[in-house]
């Protein structure tokens, strides 16, 4: 890297809920911005650039940044809006990182949001993400996508429905300790296995919920970051991996681009043993069952063996593999904002500020990701020290 080294100096998120009738979208964003500013002990006057983004198909706007800007006090500031469907939040963070690292700004604010209570049941023909003329005519949705992936995963790995339920229970146990998480259900394996079946083997509890929520981060170049906070979270590297294909080109129907993206970023950062070198994981899993494959793709274990870790009870906040300590996306999913929540949670873990769901011990490095479409990913590596 030839640009400035950068750090996250403040993070904020709203308490995620299924419905927010007390605020409109812009006011909800303002809550996250207030939280991030308070966290960084900055005021809005310090911010000189703002990057926004949401999953527009669920927003009812074409360019919602325009009406959100005044509500978050950013009139007169530089910035623009980003969008890449499911990975939008990831791209928002990546853009913020680029703007700060470019040396153009001192304090860059990244804000993402989604108010799914406005969009629930809003999609008609054409669907949410099904956009190209042809893809709209195929029977597809995230549920069918993950049903297919999980079905293929089960036949290849030998994992059973019970293991899938264990994954969901672990996520719920984590979410119960996260005050910002939306779903805290007190699940048991039995409860999950008896839940409504959407498309075998995907049950309703396996899919991510619809959430109204917003998250914000503040990024500064090195010099400024050291002035602003005693606990900067350094952004080591990031990589956007989009493949622009409705129907995946991969031979393996369970695969996403995550493995490729991780290999690339690990090589750049000298990571040879991810299990040892990365202490916290916040990986975007739109369905709980995806967590198994993603664990393999990020390099925690061999292909098709992640379910064994659950069987052996090795996954959890205080356990060997601290995967998605926040409860993950199946607990909280304000779509366009979800990747920012991953980065926020990863940063909190690095700082040791995750309170109830803090992973014990020192977190030197954390990995956060964004997922979208049929296998698009953005990967971030955060570090405690330079």
């Amino acid at each position, binding site marked *: 890297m030839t640009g400035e080294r950068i750090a996250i100096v403040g993070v904020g998120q709203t308490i995620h809920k299924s419905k927010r009738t007390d605020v409109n979208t812009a006011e909800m964003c303002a809550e996250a911005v207030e939280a991030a500013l308070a966290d960084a002990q900055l005021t809005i006057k310090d911010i000189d650039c703002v990057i926004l983004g949401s*999953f*527009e198909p669920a927003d009812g706007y074409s360019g919602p940044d325009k009406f959100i800007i*005044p509500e978050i006090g950013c009139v007169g500031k530089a910035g*623009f809006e980003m969008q890449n469907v499911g990975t939008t939040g990831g791209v928002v963070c990546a853009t913020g990182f680029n703007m700060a690292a470019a040396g153009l700004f001192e304090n860059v604010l990244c804000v993402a949001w989604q108010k799914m209570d406005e969009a629930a049941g809003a999609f008609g023909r054409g669907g949410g993400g099904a956009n190209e003329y042809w893809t709209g005519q195929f029977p597809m949705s995230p549920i069918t996508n993950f049903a297919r992936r999980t079905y293929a995963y089960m036949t290849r790995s030998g994992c059973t429905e019970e293991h899938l339920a264990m994954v969901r229970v672990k996520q719920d146990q984590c979410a119960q300790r996260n005050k910002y998480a939306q779903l805290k259900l007190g699940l048991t394996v039995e409860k999950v296995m008896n839940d409504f079946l959407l498309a075998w083997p995907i049950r309703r509890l396996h899919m991510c919920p619809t959430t109204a929520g917003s998250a914000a981060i503040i990024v500064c170049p090195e010099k400024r970051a050291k002035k602003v906070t005693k606990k900067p979270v350094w952004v080591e590297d990031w990589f956007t991996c989009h493949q*622009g294909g409705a129907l995946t080109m991969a031979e393996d129907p369970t695969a996403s681009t995550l493995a490729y993206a991780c290999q690339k970023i690990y090589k750049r950062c000298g990571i040879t043993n991810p299990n040892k070198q990365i202490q916290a994981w916040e990986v975007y899993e739109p369905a709980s069952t995806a967590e198994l494959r993603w664990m393999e793709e990020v390099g925690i274990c061999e292909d098709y063996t992640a379910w064994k870790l659950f069987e052996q009870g090795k996954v959890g906040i205080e356990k060997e593999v601290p995967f998605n300590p926040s409860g993950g996306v199946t607990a909280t999913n304000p779509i366009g904002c979800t990747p920012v929540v991953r980065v926020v949670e990863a940063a909190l873990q690095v700082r040791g500020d995750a309170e109830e769901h803090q992973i014990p011990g020192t977190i030197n490095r954390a990995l956060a990701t964004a997922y979208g479409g049929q296998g698009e990913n953005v990967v971030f590596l955060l570090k405690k020290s330079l």
Partner: protein
Amino acid sequence: MARRVGIVAVAQTKFEEKPGLHIGELLYQTSRDVMKQTGLEFKDDGTGIDSTVASGYDLMSGPGGAYMFLGYVVGAWQREDERVIEDGSMAVYYGAAQILAGHADVVLVVGYSKETQINKNLIECLSLDQVYQRRIGLDFVSAAALQAMRYSTKNGITPEQLAKVVVKARKNAKNNPYAYCCDTITVKDVLKSTMLCDPIRVQEAKPTPVDGACALILASEEKAKKLTKKPVWITGMSSCYDHHELGYRDLANCDSLVTAASKSYKMAGITKPLKEFDVAEISEHYSYQELLWSEGLGLCGKGEGGKLIDSGKTEMGGELPVNPSGGVLSGIPHCLAGMHSVVECALQLRGEAGDRQVKGAKKALAHGVDGPAGQLHCVITLEN
């Protein structure tokens, strides 16, 4: 700016209605064009294009996530592929920032628009807040008309002065083989044309629908020098937001443009824009905008936009030719205008602008705008 970013190749399609072409074909043509010029392909070992930034509203191309399914068309399969949901100038801005950040050395910037596919006014209307401004049926045309009325009444701008902007644009467009609209038109013709939304007449608004695409390749200083003999350097860039509610602003001003311009002039060391720039490409979606934005860009004093067009300084051959390409009034699609400005400025600075060439152009000013009545401006200064 501490380091420089160079534009090493630019391309554009002819702007016209293209009902027979798929969006993918538009994108492929233009991106292939710039890749051929430089011999670059997407590579993951740092020897080719590292990243791509696109611009354009999602809803323009499909119900959602349209570009997500098109990234591969430009060759960005499993590569950094991001999209700015604003005017194209912001994509250039972000692409250059990626290079300054050291995150990429070579960036492909693409923009596309197919207005023939949708009702442009409807998509623009969907940018407005749902509770107040959209509920009463306001859109970008009526918002612009409100601004035009406020601007001209406050500053005594005459309809003839506004019509002159259109006449100049169409005259310049005749020299531009890519332009959509290049008919001979007089001030009288403009003033006689049908009223679209008082005080804006049909001829004073950007022609629509138009289809087209633009592409650029940006590179770090080191690589740019190797890739081309005629690099064009980005010397300053900034964007700035204004209030969303029209009632919160004085529509006769464009405060956010003043801020964006002063920031990028400061980066580029420009103090007297009218004198120092040799050519400017300003996004004027409506005739009044060239005058108002000229004021915001510091090409004339506040309220003196009318005098500026009367003086002939902005004509071809004048002190600072504005929109030699014919500008948006000659027909550039939604979301592409700002990127088109940068492309045209780059051509001017490379001396490759053909009949519309401003002789010996050394410094250029590109401007893009988005949002109702110019809520978000982007200013990019260039040098050869």
